């Protein structure tokens, strides 16, 4: 069965043609690889292909279909695309603007300042919330002119990574 995998910019078709233990014959787009792949440590794969030794580290993302992949050269975000994912993506597409209106922090931290309040009109570039982690403050700014619809945290709160802290809406 062929799957689709998204590796940042790229969408690749992938299919296992044959597999016996470590030995796998696999097609990625129009390229066919005969290789030896084995998990050596939790989340760490060793691949031998055509004499070359590759080490790939995986961290599972928020769902079992999402990964952060580290190669020697760089780090990628990857996602397994199946029917369910496609359906969700199509839903998401329609509401894309809404996603942009959620303000969340990429890292855990502590809310130190919220210089706006619900109902405030804000302009692109205006600071909405300041989060501190590891003695450094990060300012989260509006990327477009909007109105503050909802504030979900208070000053002094601890937030997790990717937690939505504030919701904006298009100004009336």
């Amino acid at each position, binding site marked *: 069965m062929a799957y689709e995998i998204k590796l940042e910019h790229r969408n690749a078709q992938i299919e296992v043609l044959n597999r016996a233990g470590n030995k796998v014959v696999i097609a990625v787009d129009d390229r066919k690889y005969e*290789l030896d*792949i084995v998990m050596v440590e939790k989340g760490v794969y060793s691949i031998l292909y055509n004499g070359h030794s590759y080490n790939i580290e995986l*961290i599972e993302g928020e769902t079992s279909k999402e990964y952060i992949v*580290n190669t020697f050269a760089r780090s990628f975000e990857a996602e397994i695309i199946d029917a369910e994912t496609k359906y969700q993506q199509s839903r998401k597409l329609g509401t894309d603007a809404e996603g942009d209106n959620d303000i969340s922090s990429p890292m855990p931290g502590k809310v130190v300042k919220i210089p706006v309040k619900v109902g405030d009109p804000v302009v692109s570039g205006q600071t909405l919330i300041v989060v501190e982690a590891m003695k450094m403050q990060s300012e989260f700014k509006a990327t477009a002119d909007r109105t503050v619809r909802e504030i979900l945290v208070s000053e002094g709160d601890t937030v997790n990574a990717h937690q939505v802290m504030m919701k904006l809406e298009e100004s009336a």
Partner: protein
Amino acid sequence: MIRKVLVANRGEIAVRVMRSCRELGLITVGVYSEADRKAMHIRYADEAYLIGPAPSRESYLNIDNIIEAAKKSGADAIHPGYGFLSENAAFSERCKQEGIIFIGPSAHSISTMGDKITARQTMTNAGVPVVPGTEKIRDEQQALEFAHQVGVPIMIKASAGGGGKGMRLVKDMDDLLPSFRTAKSEALNAFGDDSVYIEKYIESPHHIEFQILADRHGNVIHLFERECSIQRRHQKVIEETPSPLMTPELREEMGKFAVAATKAVNYEGAGTIEFIVSDSLEYYFLEMNTRLQVEHPVTERVVGVDLVKEQINIANGLPLAMKQEDLKQTGHAIQCRIYAEDPDHNFIPHPGVVTHITVPLGLGVRYDGYVYEGYEIPMHYDPLISKLISWGKTRAESIARMRRALYEYKITGVKTNIKFLEKIMDVPDFIEGRYNTHFIENNSDRLLSPKLCGTECEDMAIIACFIDYLDKIEKVQPQKFTEEFASTWKDFGRKRSVLRL
């Protein structure tokens, strides 16, 4: 003689200090905040005491709680590490009052060097060159006069400051007064004190510091220089010794001034005299750090001393075992600071759980760290994860070894600057030793561009994800859905028997 040492710190430096204590046969006492129950320094210590909640000011900066832990444990000495209370004169004084040895200088030395204007004055009196500058500026008139006297560029700095706050660079005489006013108001906000002073600004500065050791008996030696010019927003990133800029004559001259500066404040312990050096090798005293520096390992490797052991010997009242003429720099050492931060997103700090770690090892590599697999790096403290130190017979070998070590070093779970550092090792200006504090700024395009991963490399990444995903669903997905219900009960029985409860 010191028998039991409380280390009033956390992270890599707490572990590093305890290692030397253990080698000396001393008992180690760790202290921890509520966020640090699982921290490595607590696992490493012989004894451990809770000193308060996660925020530093309620724990690692809480003098009363630390003194209480020292008394409860019967520690006869406190090592402050760096940061936190290490340059706090009141803490040094309090230890003295409580009859606990503070492994560091006296309150007097700390406060003299802590106030930049007093420090400048002391250095001037001792004949140590300082950057042409003023004392606390009385009024705008005085600011104008000085600026006209030395010419732009000049730098306005907060007297009580540090870390870039309350600082303003003035390149144009017209900007002087507006900048002066902003600096004063920033200083007031940051430090509760609006005193500022003005200095001549060195255009292409190198940051070079000298390590010193001073005992109670008036002996002072320096352990040569460290080059610390690779900085990002005034944060050091890479340090090395010897400095590629240094000549033997300059080293001897600056070393003598470092010793004179140390003597001028009756200093006792390990310390660092920081200089600012221009491209044309003019140098000026900048400040003194009255503690162990983050970058002390490069000196340890090249000079062959354990600076923490020297600190403890000095605190025990012993005379220095080495004389200036015994000391020699052998080979070359480089230190890289590994931070939990995301270079692709403006170096935002990145606390989180370390899911996997591979530490670089082997000939000529030293690793000082504190995180382990499964450890959650807390959001409350510094993002420094570890320090990687490489040694080589030559600077070229030291760079090659650091490149190899960074290649081996793998941390998953949190973002780090490892690949950013790897790229620095390949920049010609770095390889040739031609750099000043503008290095990262000047090379930012190159340093921030992603490394190439070609089609085959990308395909391997895709394949690994796919195989992992297939094996994962294999494990949880039943062979046949209809058999599922019937087999679940059997599965439970099997699981029990495997566990043999």
